């Protein structure tokens, strides 16, 4: 168990180190100069070159880009541990950390239910589809279609149909634009949920399809496993056999969930763009459009940390649920 955790932590540590290093490279090795690009956004039609040079020098110093690279790298780690991710250029002078901290709750709000509910419902649906060949041939295709749908395409169709044609859901924002101030009132929360629903639904549906297919495939294999055959030979009813198959298929599905996180996160990014939903994806796109490398950097880092954290939680959950690892037997979870 300890060596198991040791390995995991080593991998997490290395991943984090590598990710942070890649992250650090983003603004420094991009084509074009971040400060030039940032200043290009300032409409400087009546500024003379002197002032421009001064502004340039000022911002270069501000972002520490005048130091030797190794020092910049060390400083990057140092400030990282102080929670300092630099300053956003497109949202100057807001700090990147502040921008991200405001965005993250929306992501949690969207992703966690999206992932968990689609996982839960997808597994149930997949298990149901695997009950018989007839069911499999009639309802499994729904799963294939859903999981093959590009997130943004589905999102835009949902927004168009439910938002514009039927007009029953909003298509932009995290809460209505006529709200004076966000409060913890019931009506505000209802409003939040109302705006949350469509982006959630597009994440949910695609994830649902993938999980359902995964579960269906696993169950089909489990039903053929030795323990199922033994039960059958002893005359156990199909109900019990299916129940066991489901239980055992759940474990690889948990691992599968960890593997699919990257895809879900990608889906969330584009979904937020489609629905103007102010999470990390929305900020990331704004950062890319505004050539804001520091914010891109921050978004990437947050995504990495989020995915690592989720992986860790899934690992722990797996260990808690799988009796084999729980009872101290080491083994690869994933």
């Amino acid at each position: 168990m300890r060596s198991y955790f040791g390995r995991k932590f080593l991998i997490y540590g290395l991943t984090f180190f590598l990710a942070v290093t890649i992250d650090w490279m983003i603004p420094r090795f991009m084509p074009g100069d971040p400060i030039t690009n940032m200043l290009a956004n300032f409409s400087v039609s009546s500024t003379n070159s002197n002032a421009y040079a001064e502004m340039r020098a000022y911002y270069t110093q501000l972002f520490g880009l005048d130091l030797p690279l190794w020092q910049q790298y060390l400083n990057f780690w140092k400030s990282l541990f102080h929670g300092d991710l630099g300053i956003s250029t497109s949202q100057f002078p807001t700090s990147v950390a502040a921008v991200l901290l405001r965005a993250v709750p929306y992501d949690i709000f969207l992703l966690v239910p999206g992932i968990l509910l689609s996982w839960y419902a997808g597994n149930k649906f997949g298990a149901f589809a695997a009950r018989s060949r007839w069911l499999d041939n009639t309802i499994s295709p729904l799963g294939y279609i859903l999981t093959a749908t590009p997130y943004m395409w589905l999102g835009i169709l949902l927004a168009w149909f439910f938002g514009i044609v039927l007009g029953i859901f909003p298509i932009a924002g995290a809460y209505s634009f006529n709200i004076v101030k966000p409060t913890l009132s019931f009506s505000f929360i209802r409003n939040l949920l109302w705006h949350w629903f469509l982006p959630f639904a597009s994440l949910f549906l695609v994830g649902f399809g993938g999980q359902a297919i995964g579960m269906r495939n696993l169950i089909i294999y489990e039903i053929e496993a030795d323990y199922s055959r033994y039960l059958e030979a002893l005359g156990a009813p199909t109900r019990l056999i299916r129940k066991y198959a489901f239980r055992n298929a759940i474990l690889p599905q948990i691992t599968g969930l960890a593997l699919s996180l990257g895809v879900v996160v990608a889906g969330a990014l584009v979904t937020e763009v489609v629905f103007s939903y102010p999470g990390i994806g929305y900020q990331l796109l704004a950062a890319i459009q505004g050539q804001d490398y520091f914010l891109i950097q921050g978004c990437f880092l947050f995504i990495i940390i989020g995915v690592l954290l989720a992986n860790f939680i899934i690992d722990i959950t797996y260990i808690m649920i799988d009796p084999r690892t729980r009872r101290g037997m080491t083994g690869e979870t994933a």
Partner: protein
Amino acid sequence: MTLQIENLTVYYRTLRGDVRALEDTTFQVADHEIMGLAGESGCGKTTLGHSLIILKPPMKYIKGHVALDEQELPIHDMKRMNPFRFKEISLIPQYAMNAMNPTRKIGKMTAELLGSRGVNFDAIRTELMRRLDLVNLPDSVLDMYPIELSGGMKQRMVMVLSTLLNPSLLIADEITSALDVSTQKAVAEMLVEFRNREFVNSMIVVTHDMSILYQIADSIMIMYAGQLAEKASTDVIIHSPRHPYTKLLISSLPEVGVRYTETKLQGIPGKTPLLLDPPVGCRFRDRCPISFEKCMEVPPFMEVEQDHYVACWREF
């Protein structure tokens, strides 16, 4: 008579036609008899064992009757067969190591299995404990997951589980092949013990391992290419077999106790016939040193002495 089998024929359905894995089999297993079933792999012994308890595709029932304790077994009907499974006829599978759900505590799994067959776990718990004790398993195994048990423990657990409802017939399929020699011996002895204590009435022990049979079987039946070759008491089969195949088989063993797992018969010219399109008559014909014209007809499985059955024209 515990088990009476008449003209049982079971094929495997494949693309290129039916594989005639079990042809016209007729034999009996007596009360309290432990019958060993031996033969090369692919001779149909596993097919025979399985068709008695769970005959499902790609296995195909062709004809024949099976009666257990004078009661006809509907082996061709998966559903109607169900009430007999576990209670009247039970199985210790070849894959006993993996036969238990890996994510269920053994006790819970047992309870659920029994519950699903309408047996109250609590009512039978004391008996279960006694039998666990008998096979040297601590009561605590019920609170363990299969992975926490060693191979031998799993094997014994499955033995206890399969026989818990005192079936009339137990089919033990290659139960020792995955175990080391000392464990094999212990397991084999337990089978005898189970019979002696009347947990089971009679047994068919399917195996590659003649030495095990020599140790525990009352009688041995030899199969070749989907047909029965010879059945007699263990002593007779080992010391004075009459069927040419049995003779070759026994003589090819350097000494009793050596396993012949997967090894083909050495020194006998020719190959085992393909069961897709088996030769007419005696299927051992082509390799038989003493074959003659008569062998173009299928020899009957005849009782040539008391309790000694042979299927060879030369013996009649």
